[in-house]
């Protein structure tokens, strides 16, 4: 039988293959005898952790030639990732960036002091060599199996996911959560994969992973970083578990309410944002008001955080920060922002099941429209 170009190139010496990004780095899962993680945090990179522009060819080219030092993380993202790196927690990165970017992205994470357990990138060179051009743009047939495979290797009872509003992250994450929870039948998943234009053998592989993945109500929270400032109302249909956030202080607030982060850790996220020079205390206070208004945290949570942060500040979390006003003043301003809202009623949520086939079709239509408008 005639060997494909990919098979022939795959026999190149390992170092060369590594250099040109030919190989996949399939996560190894847990070492034998290692305890399962308590909580897994799955992060996308571009537009979620890293400020990346790829709306035009120039942006793409610029991004490809950037060094690790040139790459910029969003304010607060590094502090949040470090805060999440606790005993029993697992940090898994699944990014749509090409495997050729592995070295520079790994170097950037190392520069930021972010350690991770898994780091999966998209092997588009393999797709090109196999003539699978459709797969280059496809998101669901790439990310969903990567996450399922990761969970099969190391299943945690709790998972939190971080993505952005540039691609189909909200759909993929909810689909993953529902597959893991056993709410999506294999038949329905097959229809979703057909709608997402997955190749037949890829679809077969994904269905196999979906059958094997340990089932549990594991994914409690998903965050969508509003990099494009998409209207938050567009994400309401995904329910309260998926939270669109304008910045990582908002994500930290929700994780504080979820009892994943302490008040002290929320302070560190806030301080990193203030130190970036892109945020002032007023922006953070307004961010609190915004998540309350959108029904993503309770007022009581914000007030409790103000009280607990005051304790944390007194125990030295703000020591040496002479650039900040006295903490009582900050806490009072935050409480005032909550009060300004008046007696607004709580937000209510529909709990209708998601029709993923329709969501995927809509997403494709949306992407086509954007392409026509020249917006990537």
């Amino acid at each position, binding site marked *: 039988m005639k060997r494909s170009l990919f098979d022939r190139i795959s026999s190149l010496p390992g170092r060369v293959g590594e250099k040109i990004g030919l190989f996949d780095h399939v996560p190894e899962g847990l070492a034998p005898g290692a305890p399962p993680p308590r909580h897994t945090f799955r992060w996308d990179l571009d537009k979620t952790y890293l400020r990346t522009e790829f709306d035009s060819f120039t942006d793409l080219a610029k991004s490809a030639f950037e060094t690790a030092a040139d790459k910029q993380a969003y304010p607060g993202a590094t502090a949040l990732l470090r805060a999440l790196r606790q005993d029993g927690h697992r940090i898994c990165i699944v990014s749509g960036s090409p495997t050729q970017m592995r070295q520079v992205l790994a170097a950037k994470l190392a520069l930021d002091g972010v350690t991770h357990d898994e780091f999966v990138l998209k092997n588009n060179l393999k797709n090109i060599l196999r003539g699978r051009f459709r797969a280059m743009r496809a998101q669901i047939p790439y990310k969903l199996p990567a996450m399922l495979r990761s969970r099969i290797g190391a299943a945690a009872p709790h998972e939190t996911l971080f993505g952005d509003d540039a691609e189909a992250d909200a759909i993929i994450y909810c689909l993953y959560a529902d597959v893991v929870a056993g709410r999506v039948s294999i038949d329905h998943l097959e229809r979703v994969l057909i709608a997402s234009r997955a190749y037949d053998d890829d679809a077969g592989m994904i269905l196999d992973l979906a059958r094997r993945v340990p089932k549990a109500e594991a994914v409690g929270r998903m965050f969508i970083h509003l990099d494009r400032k*998409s209207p938050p*109302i567009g994400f309401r249909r995904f329910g309260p578990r998926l939270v669109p956030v*304008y910045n990582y202080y908002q994500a930290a607030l929700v994780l504080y309410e979820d009892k994943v982060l302490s008040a002290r850790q929320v302070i560190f996220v806030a301080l990193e944002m203030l130190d970036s020079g892109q945020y002032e205390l007023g922006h953070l206070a307004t961010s609190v008001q915004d998540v309350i*208004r959108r029904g993503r945290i309770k007022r009581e949570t914000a007030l409790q955080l103000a009280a607990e942060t005051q304790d944390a500040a007194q125990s030295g979390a703000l020591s040496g920060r002479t650039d900040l006003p006295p903490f009582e003043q900050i806490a009072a301003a935050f409480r005032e922002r909550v009060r*300004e809202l*008046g007696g607004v009623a709580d937000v209510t949520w529909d709990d209708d099941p998601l029709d993923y086939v329709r969501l995927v079709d809509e997403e494709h239509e949306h992407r086509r429209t954007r392409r026509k408008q020249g917006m990537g």
Partner: protein
Amino acid sequence: MHRIVVDAMGGDLAPDEIVQGAAEASLQLAGAEIILVGDAAVLGRILPRMRHDGARVRVHHAPALIEMDEKPAEALAAKPEASIAVAVDLVARGEGDAVVSAGNTGASVLACARRWKLLAGIKRAALAAVFPTELRRGEKDDPFSLILDVGATVEVTAEDLVGFAVMGSAYAKLVSQNRRPRVALLSNGTEPGKGPPEIVAAHAALVETTELNFIGNVEGLDIPRGVADVIVTGGFTGNVVLKMLEGVSETVVRLARYAHKERLAWRLGLVALSSAIDQLKQLTDWQQYGGAPLLGFEYPFIKAHGRSNARAITNALKVAQKALAGNLTGNIARTMAELAERT
């Protein structure tokens, strides 16, 4: 960071268009925080439908609103928690830096007069308006001149008119990037002795100033020509002039419509001119100007047109930020102090 307070419930198209304009401004004005004042439940339903920056737009609840046709004094007395009153009060309490409103003009002026102080040396506030002109001005090639006062103060003294001249000049410098705006008094003749006593006395005072580029008196016909960049007059005359100019514009449009219907040749003529008319409409589009200021108070107040849509509100917010960034009120106060020192 500049905190710009927006009366979200004021205006014919409020709150939807006002919120949309503010949402857009939150993406364009990096150094500003926007405070939407109005019914928090209503605003909370509209805001998530818009692209905006959630860290730069906040909501301050105000349970009442003043309609466009309500009598200002009565409405403010009956509704102390109306959005315009709360917006002005927020700034007075140091929780905001400027106000933008497309709502009831009288209520806006009255709310400011009750809660804000006048700048040192200014006896009365003035409401300004812009009017399209034949000649252009400033680095921005602005096709608008500024007329003030157009209704905030009915009876004026010569001293008030000098104050208006200082305020109008400072505003034109900042917004039109016009380094030395030509300031004129509106009168019934160009000679210094023409006009009522307060105009004659103001003329005598203004020719002595070196701070202003005072070009003397102008007549009504000079306004649309654009002879002056800032036209100073009392509120009664200013309001009559403004309404008359608006009336003339509307009549011209109606006559064009009549011509369009009446004869084929006239219709063809209008079609031939249509691109030029469109260009003229774009040039004189008040929505791009955003709003006009209420001058004389210690804080900037930008009064947007009652029919303002989202674009006009975004532009009004840009004007407010420009007024704050350029320290408009500080510049007026400084010039007034310099004038007072010399006299």
